[in-house]
């Protein structure tokens, strides 16, 4: 193993923080997934949990969604940022000490107390905002710390040198800082339908301004870095970026179609949802063209996760544009279709991208353990589990919607759901659990430095600046 090659390839990366956030991501992932699996089984065995309040369905679901969004994706994004920001900007992140504080605050002042509080009954009943306000305050502080940690590096050389991933990172961190307080605070002080309008905005902003930009930053980074070819079109990448930030925030009200929120606001959101599909087609076309030559399922595991996340991104976005339309929405809203959709987004798109970014960064930590077989298993288990779950829940949603529209007794929709819930709990959740455990095994066992060895064996170890010149701006500038 040639250490100099690694250090050339990964300039000034604080690998300790990449590793720490990566491990935290995997641990919080397993905790969150455990909560999800328990609630999936509780729909089959409702007395599982024996009436213990902290094991009841509602509280575990609070823990599940917040754990996935903040614990798993948050940590995985931070791990990726510690890897990518120095490469993208050519400068180190602001401070290693700040990094250790951020790590501690995120995991021990946000996740840990957040989970303990919602499980013990201190929470707020707002989707994607379930942690109580006291934890929200810490989240905002931590997001501000993250902005200080990661953003200054980008501005040293000016805007025209920013690669699209850098734009997404800046956009994601800045807009989340704006949207998070709105979504968590406003509905507490604005009543009923008006508060719901703000909640709708936040539900979509959480996905659109936090999760999507950072996931796309990973995808746009990993594809050229792993294929050693520049992306297909920088123009399309920037077009997609700006359209995303213009259109995503305008989607929120599509969660409340046919409600008392003014119809013109609903129609505006529905229109924006359709346009968003156009934007995603632009982004994904650019990504797929950038992948050309790497194969539909690239051999490099990080790249394969990222490519698969791209496919799911296209599917989930087209599905989202479609289900925002009134005719579809009235048939599937409130059903398991939507649960399938959200898992396609958070797991299929965002988690595959995050896992790809994590594996990619892990390969480039010289001392990190790396177990290629386990990672390969993780990939296939996750693909199988996700597809089974999404197809299953989509059909379940159609069945439920049909029974409701037919005026069947309510309980018949519960009875008809059971077979689909059995498939999800007994089929999909074990596959997914196996996949996530394999991912943990893949990144914590095996030989140290095995990741980089695998990259070298496959494609040689030329430093990233030489093989992907358009990923990193040319020093000196074009001006």
């Amino acid at each position, binding site marked *: 193993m040639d250490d100099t090659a690694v250090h050339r390839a990964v300039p000034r990366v604080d690998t300790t923080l990449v590793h720490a956030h990566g491990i935290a991501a995997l641990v919080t992932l397993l905790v969150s997934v455990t909560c999800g699996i328990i609630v999936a089984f509780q729909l089959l065995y409702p007395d599982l949990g024996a009436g213990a309040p902290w094991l009841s369905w509602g509280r575990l679901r609070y823990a599940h969604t917040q754990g996935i969004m903040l614990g798993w994706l948050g940590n995985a994004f931070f791990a990726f940022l510690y890897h990518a920001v120095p490469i993208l900007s050519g400068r180190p992140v602001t401070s290693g000490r700040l990094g250790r504080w951020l790590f501690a605050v995120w995991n021990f002042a946000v996740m840990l107390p957040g989970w303990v509080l919602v499980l013990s009954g201190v929470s707020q009943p*707002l989707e994607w905002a379930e942690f109580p306000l006291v934890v929200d305050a810490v989240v905002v502080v931590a997001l501000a710390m993250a902005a200080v940690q990661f953003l200054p590096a980008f501005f040293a050389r000016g805007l025209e040198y920013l690669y699209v991933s850098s734009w997404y990172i800046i956009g994601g961190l800045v807009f989340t800082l704006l949207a998070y307080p709105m979504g968590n605070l406003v509905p507490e002080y604005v009543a009923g339908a008006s508060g719901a309008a703000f909640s709708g905005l936040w539900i979509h902003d959480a996905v659109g301004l936090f999760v999507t930009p950072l996931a796309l930053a990973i995808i746009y980074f990993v594809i050229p870095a792993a294929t050693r070819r520049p992306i297909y079109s920088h123009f399309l990448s920037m077009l997609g970026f700006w359209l995303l930030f213009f259109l995503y925030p305008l989607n929120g009200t599509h969660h409340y179609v046919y409600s008392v929120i003014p119809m013109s606001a609903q129609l505006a959101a529905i229109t924006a949802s359709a346009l968003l599909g156009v934007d995603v087609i632009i982004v994904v076309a650019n990504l797929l063209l950038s992948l050309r030559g790497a194969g539909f399922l690239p051999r490099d595991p990080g790249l394969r996760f990222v490519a698969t996340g791209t496919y799911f991104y296209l599917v989930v976005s087209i599905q989202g544009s479609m289900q925002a339309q009134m005719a579809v929405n009235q048939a599937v809203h409130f059903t398991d279709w939507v649960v399938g959709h959200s898992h396609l987004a958070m797991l299929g798109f965002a988690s595959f991208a995050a896992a790809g970014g994590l594996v990619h960064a892990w390969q480039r930590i010289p001392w990190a353990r790396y177990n290629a077989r386990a990672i390969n298993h993780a990939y296939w288990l996750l693909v199988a589990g996700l597809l089974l779950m999404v197809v299953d829940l989509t059909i379940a949603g159609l069945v439920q919607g049909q029974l409701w529209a037919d005026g069947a007794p309510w309980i018949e929709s519960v009875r008809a759901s059971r077979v689909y819930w059995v498939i999800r709990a007994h089929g999909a959740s074990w596959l997914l659990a196996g996949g996530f455990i394999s991912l943990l095994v893949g990144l914590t066992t095996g030989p140290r430095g095995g990741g980089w060895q695998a990259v070298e064996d496959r494609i040689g170890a030329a430093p990233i600046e030489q093989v992907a010149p358009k990923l990193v701006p040319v020093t000196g500038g074009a001006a």
Partner: protein
Amino acid sequence: MSAGRAVRKAYLVASVAGVLFFAMSVGLLGIWPRRVIEAQTAAMSPEHPLGLSDSALRGRAIYAREGCAYCHTQQIRYLHPDMARFGAPTLAWETRFDYPHLWGTRRIGPDLSRAAGTRSADWHYAHLFAPRSVVSLSVMPAYPALFDGAADRPRQEARDLLAYLESLGRARELAGPEGEAHAREACNCADDEMRQMAFAGPVNAHPAKARRRGGVPALAPSSDLARGQQLFGDHCASCHGATGAGDGPGASALRPRPANLIEHEYSNRRVAEALWHGVSGTAMPAWRDHPLNDVAALVAGVRALGAVRDEPALPAHLAELGARVYAANCAQCHGAEGDGRGSAADALPMAPTDFRAQRPTLNQSLQVLRNGVDGTPMAPWSGRLGADEMLAVAHYVRGFYDGGAR
């Protein structure tokens, strides 16, 4: 201007525009709707809408804490299937005290916007304590921590939660026809189809809401006993017991106890009424959401449970006595003809038994006379009537039954 500076300027403009777009989204989809909703609320709300009591507010916090909104929405959409099942679509003013809103985005259980007055209190307690004791197919979690060991021993938390459930939709119902008329006028919705829908049907259309009286759709007699028994097992056995003896898992928490279907003979009409309207004042809900042929099959299934026995004949010397005791003590409520329409009947919280449509066994009849029926106005008579008198009147009430002649 060099290319680099042009790019830099373009990006700066776009960055500012991006932040402005975010601000626009908040303005367009948050602040502006809020103004419209608040104007609507001000115009359409009754002058003094019912707020939440302290108990209901504490209950709301429990509802929020337990994540009830993940499975129960509180938002009836402007869609006919929603309105037919739950009632009038949610108006803005109805949500004016919701900090924060609890609209929800998934319905595993039914919408609860109109929960007030839909179920009885003891049904709710039994359901919260052990959901499957009253709804055998339910997947709802149990909340025994809200109780002191049994469904009929609710702690303060369970009472608060019930107070909250009973507040859902109450403000609109209490506003009454005047409130609806005021809101309709203020909404100025002559041409707006969606707004018109807000006032199209009953405020609470829940198919399980019990009604004191009303017509029953004509049911074709069903010979599908197997279907009836299957439906009974799915929906009725949890309270009435697998054999119909009124001893299902949910029974012990309910006052009055579920009817003992073995110890009665029922006419078709009586069973059909109980299924279609529920039994107002008891935990027995209505089953109007079931297809008519299923209701007919269930009628047949319930009637088949009744044991028709040869009862001992009334001793001859007591024949006169029964009529006299009945006229003196029972007729005010149960009616001179035994049809449950005595002069006091309407003032009672639940309808007195109509003996023409249902005939208790002698044993059942005597037991009720001796012990009364807990949870109903039917008092125990053992202290007031002698053994002969009770035996006589127990026989007498059985004589009204006409087996569904009407």
